[in-house]
């Protein structure tokens, strides 16, 4: 260990741009054994492991780094999976630069440990050697329904099954995985990884009900009667609009519609809502990870040009930095410091966006810079297709009311410290409670809610 002076930080190898533009396969290659060992060996095993505290799941990062470095892959696998429901997935999709790797003690001047890449390696390597996650054989009496099969739901199910509880999962879509299935493009996360996890849960005894929307296909009351506890992890699926003139035009789309359509196509599904961007000029409004997913998908769909419009400067982008780099490599053009004023239309067809330039104010006490609109700086960006990637809000479906689950002003479910809703049998976590956030925080919520449920059921 402590070999950070000997080895430099190395990120996982990326596939060649020209190659990767041709398909939706993952861009990053998984670390091999020796690279994973070498990169893990850089870890200082700090007395204050900031990576561990910087991880929403509190993963035992230094522990499995050490076991990887000292060639105890089975132990690394066990340690990594103890706290995390699907480390190989989060290793791929977490914004590590703002979480564990951002907090890594070596991140100041030496280059953080490539934690995400090692994390993916640890589990993938174990799976390849035939290892599987463990679940309890001692079945317990408690029955828990999980609504939603996204990261929060899968996480809750995983930790409940580990202790032997009976779990049934309800998903309104045709496939499980939620945002991870339809929101995140395949070049970031291979869909088979989700199916693999779901299959293990089913093997462990979970019943999965697809195409089953609560309140429609199954009543909330039935659910409440049949189960001892219910966990709601339905995410934040309502997309936001910018609220500007012209956004109702037929060629102005929501990010999730674009991404879902493409994913369904890639999965070979029937796909009536597919948005074809081939040979078109695409403008994506927004600067988060979803915007990156849209621009990079558009490039792969053969758009003639793809531009990303963002209100702040590059340094203030909320999404993962490496995604911006990848997008640029793939030919996406970025327009920073612009704010959409109005969408120009020709009948029902949008033709472009009128933009105002912006600048950043001096940092305030909290260090945050505000956006200042430069009055009179209007100019036009032409477009054939405009994608709104402005974030998501909770949907607050009707069954919540039937279950007497209270929501707040913006539709988020209200919970106690122990993830209990106003109905003490019902728990909630993830985006439907906290608003659109990360898969890892949803996974943490799911896990901690599961522990709270088990406390009550035990």
């Amino acid at each position, binding site marked *: 260990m402590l070999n950070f002076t000997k080895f430099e930080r190395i990120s996982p190898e990326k596939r060649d741009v020209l190659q990767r533009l041709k398909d939706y396969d993952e861009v990053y290659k998984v670390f091999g054994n020796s690279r994973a060992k070498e990169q893990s060996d850089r870890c200082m095993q700090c*007395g204050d492991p900031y990576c561990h505290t910087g991880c929403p799941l509190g993963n035992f990062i230094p522990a499995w780094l050490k076991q990887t470095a000292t060639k105890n892959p089975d132990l690394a696998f*066990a340690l990594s999976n103890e706290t995390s429901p699907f480390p190989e997935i989060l290793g791929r999709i977490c914004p590590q630069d703002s979480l564990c790797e951002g907090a890594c003690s070596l991140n100041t001047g030496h280059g953080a440990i490539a934690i995400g890449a090692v994390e993916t390696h640890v589990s993938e390597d174990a799976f390849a050697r035939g290892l599987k996650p463990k679940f309890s054989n001692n079945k317990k009496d408690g029955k828990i329904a999980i609504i939603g099969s996204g990261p929060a739901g899968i996480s809750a199910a995983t930790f409940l099954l580990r202790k032997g509880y009976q779990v049934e999962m309800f998903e309104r879509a045709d496939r499980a995985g939620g945002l991870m299935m339809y929101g995140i493009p395949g070049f970031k996360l291979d869909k088979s990884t989700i199916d693999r996890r779901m299959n293990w849960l089913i093997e462990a005894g979970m019943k999965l009900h697809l195409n089953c929307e609560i309140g429609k296909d199954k009543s909330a009351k039935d659910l409440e009667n049949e189960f001892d506890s219910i966990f709601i992890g339905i995410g934040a699926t309502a997309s936001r609009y910018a609220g500007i003139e012209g956004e109702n035009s037929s060629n102005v789309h929501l990010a999730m519609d674009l991404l879902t359509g493409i994913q369904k196509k890639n999965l070979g599904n029937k796909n009536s809502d597919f948005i074809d961007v081939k040979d078109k000029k695409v403008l994506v409004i927004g600067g988060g990870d979803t915007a990156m997913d849209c621009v990079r998908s558009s490039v792969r769909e053969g758009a003639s040009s793809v531009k990303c419009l963002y209100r702040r400067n590059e340094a203030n982008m909320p999404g993962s930095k490496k995604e911006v780099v990848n997008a640029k490599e793939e030919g996406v053009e970025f327009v920073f410091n612009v704010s959409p004023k109005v969408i120009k239309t020709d009948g029902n067809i949008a033709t472009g966006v009128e933009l105002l330039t912006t600048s950043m104010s001096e940092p305030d006490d909290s260090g945050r810079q505000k956006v200042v609109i430069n009055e009179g700086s209007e100019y036009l960006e032409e477009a054939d297709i405009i994608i709104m990637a402005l974030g998501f809000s909770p949907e607050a479906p009707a069954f919540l009311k039937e279950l007497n689950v209270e929501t707040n002003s913006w539709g988020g479910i209200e919970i106690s410290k122990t993830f209990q809703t106003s109905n003490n049998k019902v728990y909630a976590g993830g985006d439907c409670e906290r608003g659109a956030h990360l898969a890892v925080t949803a996974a943490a919520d799911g896990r901690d809610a599961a522990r709270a449920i088990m406390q009550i059921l035990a």
Partner: protein
Amino acid sequence: MGCNLDLLTSFKDNCGFGLVADMQNRQSHKNLEDAITSLERMMHRGAVAADGKTGDGSGLLLSIPEYFMRKIATKEGVDLPETYGIAMIFAKDLSDIDTFEEFCESNDLKVVLRRTVPVDTDALGAQALASLPNIIQVFVVPNTLMSSKRFDAMLYLTRKECEHKLIDKKDFYIPTFSSKVIAYKGLIMPTHIKHFYVDLRDEDFKISFSLFHQRFSTNTLPQWKLAQPFRAIAHNGEINSVEANRFNVEIKSEQLKSEIFSDEEIERLLPILQVGSSDSASLDNMFEFMLANGVDFFKAARSLVPAPWQNAPHMDADLRAFYEYTATAMEAWDGPAAVSLTDGRHIGCLIDRNGLRPSKYVITKDDKLYITSEYGTLSLDEDNILERGRLQSGEMIALDLKHGKVLKEDDINDYLKSSQYYSKWLNEDMDYIQEYIEDSFLNTSDYILDDLEKKQKYFNITYEAIDQMIEPMANDGKEPVGSMGDDTPLACFSQVNRNFTDYFKQKFAQVTNPPIDPYREKVVMSLETGFGQIHNILSEQPEYAKRLKTTSPILMKEKFDILHSFGHPQSPRYDEYYKNKTFSTTFTTDLKASLVALSEKVVKAVKDEQVSVIILDDRNVGEKAKLIPMAMAVGYINHQLLKEEIRHSISIVTVTGEVYDPHMAAVLIAFGATAIYPYMMYATTVALFKRKDLSKYELQRLLKNTQKSVNAGLLKIMSKMGICTIASYRNSGLFDVIGLSDEITNDCFEGAYTDLAGLTYEDIEKKIEKSHINAFIDENCMFPLDLGGFYKYSNGGEYHDYGPATTKAMHNKNANKKEDISDFDSLKELVETRDKKFIRDFFEFNSDKDAIDLSSVESKDEIFKRFASAAMSCGSISPEAHEAVAQAMNTIGGSSNSGEGGEDAKRFGTLKNSKIKQIASGRFGVTPGYLRSAEELQIKIAQGAKPGEGGQLAGHKVTQLIATLRHTVAGVTLISPPPHHDIYSIEDLAQLIFDLKQINPLAKITVKLVSSIGVGTIAAGVAKAYADKIIISGGDGGTGAAPLTSLKHAGNAWEMGLSEAHNALKANHLREFVHVQTDGGLKTGMDVVKAAMLGAESYAFGTAALTLLGCKILRICHTNKCSVGVATQDETLRDHFEGTVERLISYFTFIAEDVRNILASLGYSTIEEIVGRSDLLKVIDDDFAKKFDFQNILRRIDGVDTCQKESNEPFDDNKYEKDLLKKVHRTIENPNSPVKVNTEISNLNRSFGALISGEIARYYGDKGLPENSININLKGIAGQSFGAFLSTGMNLNLAGAANDYVGKGMNGGKIIIKPTHQGQNFAGGGNTCLYGATGGKLYIRASVGERFAVRNSGCISVVEGTGDNPCEYMTGGIVVILGNTGINFGAGMTGGLSFVYDPEKGFVDKMNQELIEAVRIDTDDTERERLYLKRLLLDYLHETESNEADRILQNFRSEIRNFWMVKPKNMTVLPLDPDEGD
């Protein structure tokens, strides 16, 4: 128990001592005069009160002055028969004398005279006068016809009975009651003893021998009865193992059979030890008891203070057999000891195995034997001297008065070994477990457990425990090292699963006794363990040799099985002597009742079934069975067995999962376990390496390593208390037990120190229940163990005060402006809301005043003066960090601390100069210039992270800069010994303080101690040794590297030690003489204010300062890989240092302002007003807080709360050298005019040369004056520390001899010592000469004592013989020895060279060959070395006119073959410059 009030007035004592005897047993008054003169001239070794009269006590133990006593009796009309005895009695209440006389009558003794001893009270100080008892002599004669042997026995029995009867009369004491000796002693200065006791002035008062003693007690409440000598001994030193010895005396008392006394009389004699007496008095009681029962004088002496034999391969086999036989029932009374002893016929002196106390003898041609702590206490005619020598480690010398013969070590050994057939006895009856084993650690069947992981979880074997402790032990065979301090709560406050042994804090030696080095001085250490009964100690029988032995108390399956088979009836080896029975230590409900029931079962088995090996086994712990903590079980049963008086017949063997580090093992042994079979440690190791697919031999090595690590750790823990053998450590209870209820500590851990009485059996049971559920109910799924969080932070694990959140809060923002202090609000919030983690968190303010306006509170600049940085050496931290700390502290007006390891002279006199310079045991970089650059000189006795231990700076970290600062060569490993080799006792500390006050009279001398129960006693002693400031460091202090269990388990919270020290100083009226400082995890103004209220006047910050400079608490300092450039010497990493002086200043500003705000809110305007005001604190209103007893911490006794004196002036004003300084000052003013002075010197003139050297260094630094500028020619016997810290340009020529510490810390110049009697058989200097020397030359044409040239790093020296341990830890310089050397030569020697003349070819066996090798210099390629040696010898001859050098040089061609050159093995370039030799 609970209330430690008595600790404030308890004491430890050390001293000067000796004896005078006429070898022909001729009685004379002159003998008495000589004894008194010797005593007077060692007055500096005792303590003197301000009135110049009250000392800590002194006295004489004399042969009965036959003529004088008969004269007195006749005068009183009594005609004394041939056989009579005299009692010397101190009694306030005269009716006690009646009681005494009644006992005499009942024992057939006729009282013929009661005499009031005439005294002159003018000789007494006020304190002594106030407590003066009646001093009465009672003369008795046999009432019936009885043999003189019987008569003596009756005297002893009478005294013991009377003592038992009057046990509550604190003022009744019988100094002696004997037909052979009589004591004249008391609270008198040696100079006044004759003045006080009128008898002693009578010329007719003639004696043939005298033991004498001058006491230095750590407290100021001396008592008449504490004065030495006792009835048979006078002791200089301290018995470190006394707690164990006392316990063991009780065990031995269970079955005594005496030839002198009947069983009934023995009952009347018991207990052997007087309650409440000192360690020395207990030793005296035991020795006297043995003598009274007819045990041979020499056997009694050597069984109590044996020479090291277990690991002394060259010892004569028969002698070894004597010791091995004796050890079956007797364990060493271990610790620094020079003991003079007598039974009336023999008189002698012996010294401990480590040679830690000086004992010097002179034999004269007119048949006198003088033994004293120092040479030169009597002005003897040099021509009359036959022999001048000293006792070496473990040696004894005696005089047989009957035959007028001196018995030296060899004579005594010959007598001992041939007195019985010890070898034969041992051959017949002693069994060694090892002999029945093919090989150990190959059978792992016991270590494969089905429910291993559950058990690991239950025994708190977390991922971290494996990763941080067990795995490194298995891999490396030693305990792992960590860094930074312990920032976790005490176990009793913790909310997480902690080990039961976490309630125990290791005791360690500081000041009054030295720790020892278990690695470099291995020869004295032993873990040898035996099973079997303790026999009658009063007789020697062949069958007493029966013993089953093993080399370590840590067993493995193979040895355990053998042990078990010896005691198991079905086994062919069965021997009922070792009959065993196994008891499970698990329970289901009710811990207390289960403990009692278990103990009853054990007692019953011992009584009814004659079981002698008790096996306590926790292996059946499981879902239903919970665990009685093994320490609890062992401690409880041990005490019950003693109560039942059957402890002597049993051995307690524990089979436990609770031991997987050395600390855990030490706790069990200290409370009575004979041996430990730590199966979970082995099981964990096997499981850990199972997946590696190792061969069984590789696995064997790993398992062996774990045992080896625990063994080494045990040695380390024992050596911390200065204890060498496990037998003397067993039953010692040498722990502070923190936070357990009085009930538990009384039941299980009686004898140990305790504080914060709190958790009850029920509380402990609840904790056990919780961990039981965690292990057996709450299973993890993927990774079955808990993660841990004890050593390093982990979510959900133990609380860490420097956890990520706190550290981040301290790093919060890049505030560069001093005014910008709002920055630390989140830190303040975190610290103040951490909720009952540390003792201070349990207190809230309770002011008696209304708040005042902030503007009327003293300024922050006033407060800054009270701030210091904690000692951190340049070496442990980078030069950048070191300088930033210094600059910040100097800017605000606080003080920075150089730490151990020198400081770049370029920084002296600048803003980067550290005001505090540290003097630590390695003496690295301690030069005259360094000492003069300081305003405060801090003697580091102990360090919070690893009190009682030394340190090591690995060669690869010794960069050029570090090497220069520490006066060594880059790449050389630097070792700091555990003790200061010039401080083995309190009078030694007084001497070092005196040295430092000479070299730098302007500096304050501070002594850094570590919090431990009993530190108050030490603090009082330190104040009496004339320190100006005392630091009480918390056990949580940081470090660059320390063994993990030391970091975690040694040293208490500062709150405890501070309060105790403050109150003890007050109780002894010493608080006004010294300033008190504390450190340990202080972070905010609240911490500072609470520290002030508990008695601290100033405050030091270590880790906090580093954190502000960018430290992220990575805890990797020891790896040299600090990624932020704070604690590393790596050039590349140092580039990452981003700390700023401003940032540090902003932090201290925050603290000072925080303090001001709190003061204002409390209504006080200065810190001074609240120092010691513990009444301004109260315990918070909280249920958890109510569990604990904080009275010892919140105690406030009457008296002055702060230091009132500018300086704590020594009794000795050193006028002698002050006068000389005036004479030579012209040369210091004008370096080009050399001066020569001729004068006489005596042993009263101590630290000679330091004052002048200091004056030189004041102006010229280490450069000094031109060579040979000041030449001082002296005649006589010089006092201690002759030539200490000598500066370049000073030459000291002494015609005579010198005492201990010659050339200590010398940096330049020359010391030439020419005794009249030259050569290896005469002494020219004492112990520990050249300690920490950095340059200059020392030539002595005679031999020197123990530990010559320890830590020498630059001096060139020639002597003609040395004692044991020469050249230890040497890193530079050259030492030539033209005669015999002692054993353990060059232990830890990593640099420098030595030439040893060895015509007898015995030298190589005396080397400690771990690091050094000896090579011949008579080959072609050693020409340079030969030439060098020759030139050096020529120079030596020229300076000393040594006959030996002359002879060798005459025959140099042939003699060269008799020289060895000794060098560190890995040294390739020899530091020889032939030009230096002439």
